[in-house]
């Protein structure tokens, strides 16, 4: 999947990246992406050559600044 990082208010704030989906996310979903070696700890990715994985589909982001 191609993922566009965003800030908590939904605005794009970094370059898009390619991530392996482990939770059946769909296009348009807000997701949680883990990057670096931690991505290999997502279910089913042990010892896979990946550095970004989708590990959750976000329901709500609550901000209190």
């Amino acid at each position, binding site marked *: 999947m191609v993922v566009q990082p965003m800030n908590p208010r939904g605005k794009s704030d970094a370059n898009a990246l390619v991530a392996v989906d482990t939770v059946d996310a769909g296009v348009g979903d807000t997701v*949680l992406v883990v990057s670096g070696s931690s991505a290999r700890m997502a279910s089913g990715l042990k010892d896979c050559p990946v550095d970004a994985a989708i590990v959750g589909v976000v329901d709500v*982001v609550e901000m*209190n600044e």
Partner: protein
Amino acid sequence: MQLGRVIGDVVVTRKDPNLSGLTLLIVQPLTPEREAAGRPIVAVDSVGCGVGEEVFFVRGKEASFPFYPAEPPVDAGIVGIVDHWTVEKT
């Protein structure tokens, strides 16, 4: 480790089974002068902190170490709540 302030939280129902029961918070990294430093990140909480608190956090696979022997797929984790800090001006 980096300083930050907890500015929100994230509710995620459909997720990796190893993330079950973990609290996900939004952390704004801070400079020692308490100004925002970079983009906010989602971090897993291992110390029971709340929104508005100043904390320090780690990035990378080390964020999962507080939950050993479980290995949740996390790349940022809050590992301490800061009571206060001082910076000497040079």
